[in-house]
């Protein structure tokens, strides 16, 4: 059944092209998924990564050494120094967290054990008024 919405929809000349494109993409996608799941893809990508690392590591080491010397000469902290400070900061944070835990525990224990504040025995409103007037007279004398 063709409904009104379908009838009023303008004809899109690109629609058949889009459908064809999607069919092609589906087929391409399946081929690529099969390819990346193959053993030789794993081997090839591993080899590429290994080559990149083998080539880049010596350069990286040279840059790191040069940077370290430069920082030393400028009397500035190296990356290792900053990392060491960060480690110590984390340890301090853990100690603070431990103290926070102990404080929370102490507070939790203290609250139920705290002696209740002495409460005025409950009195009727007229008795409270009488007490207030007696106290006022005492203050005057």
């Amino acid at each position, binding site marked *: 059944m063709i409904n009104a919405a379908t009838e009023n929809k303008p004809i899109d000349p690109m629609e058949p092209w889009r459908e064809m494109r999607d069919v092609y*993409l589906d087929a*391409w996608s399946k081929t690529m998924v099969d390819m*990346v799941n193959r053993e030789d893809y794993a*081997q090839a*990508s591993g080899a590429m*990564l290994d080559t990149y690392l083998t080539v880049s590591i010596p350069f990286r080491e040279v840059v790191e050494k040069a940077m370290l010397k430069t920082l030393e000469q400028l009397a500035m902290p190296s990356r290792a120094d900053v990392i060491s400070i960060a480690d110590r900061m*984390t340890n301090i*944070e853990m100690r603070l967290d431990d103290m926070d*835990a102990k404080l*929370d525990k102490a507070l939790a224990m203290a609250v139920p054990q705290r002696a209740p504040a002495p409460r005025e025995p409950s009195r009727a409103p007229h008795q409270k008024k009488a007490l207030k007037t007696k106290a006022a007279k005492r203050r005057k004398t």
Partner: protein
Amino acid sequence: MIEAQVVTDPFTDAAHRLKTLTKVMTTRAAIAQTPKELVWTLNKAKLYRYIPVLSKEKRHPVPLLMVFALMNRPYILDLRPGHSFVEYMLNKGYDLYLLDWGAPGPEDKNLKFDDYTLDYMPRAIRKLKTISGSEEFSLLGWCIGAILTTIYASLRGEEGLRNLILLTAPLDFSNKQNLTFARWTDERYFDVEKVLAAFGNMPGEMIDYGAKALKPVENYVSNYLKLWDNLDDPRIVESWHAMNTWVTDNVSLAGGAFRQLIVDLYRKDKLMRGELVIRGERVDLSRIHANLLTVIAEGDHITPGCQSEPIMSKVSSADKELFRMSGGHIGIMAGSGASKHTWPHISGWLDPRSE
């Protein structure tokens, strides 16, 4: 009434489409908008508490802590207003907490699962208990977050863990034929030590490339064509923009944790075999007694169902359920069908167990 005449000049239309395309490709969407407060921090990790929308009397007494993966931002759980799991659960009356691992720096390259599960998580949970006033809590772990919550549940589960929800949890690595990542990271082809010696942490861009290369045509071609085809539909553009913002916001994975993930899990399947040792303690899945909900995404190419299902027979939980959803690894929680299927199911399972 005078009807405004809409002029559809092809050049104006093309200019408008180009403007929209440029905007979504070059800007960040307004994501993670639900109000929250920072209640605890340790190193890069942060514990957030979402501001409850219901009064204390109407809320569930058992709080819920969400733990996401280490190498992605957790705001996928609160993607955008009107389409947010966080928003949904707050409206259902949960006292909701999120553990954000943050981005590890070079100083964190030695962080391992041991640190995350036995230092960070217990401390964050202690704070959660203090704030919520509840000795019991529920844990929701997604992806690598599900590995961490499973390890925690086994080692420290007796410390008040009532409910455990595992979403697309990669726990069983025995079925190597179905695991593309296992093939790529096989010791014959992939030298973990060499990678970590070069980078310290596993760079987020490399992890992102790995995830996208599992379905290269979808991720590098179809995804953008989908946007191009729907540039006139603000609803789809907004959704695409938010998702793209999340996908392109990569986080490195701490070197120590990456080594454990590849060597101990992908290669040796130690968790499921009961051989994983975390700071001297063996992770025994039969020590998990919490109520368990495992959610599997049937179209998940990152964590196929065969990785999540076997835990059901390993745990000692008397109350356990396996729920299969159609959708992908992220789509089941952030896709258009999530609010109609996954979220109501999680809430429906958790509600009676949070009283």
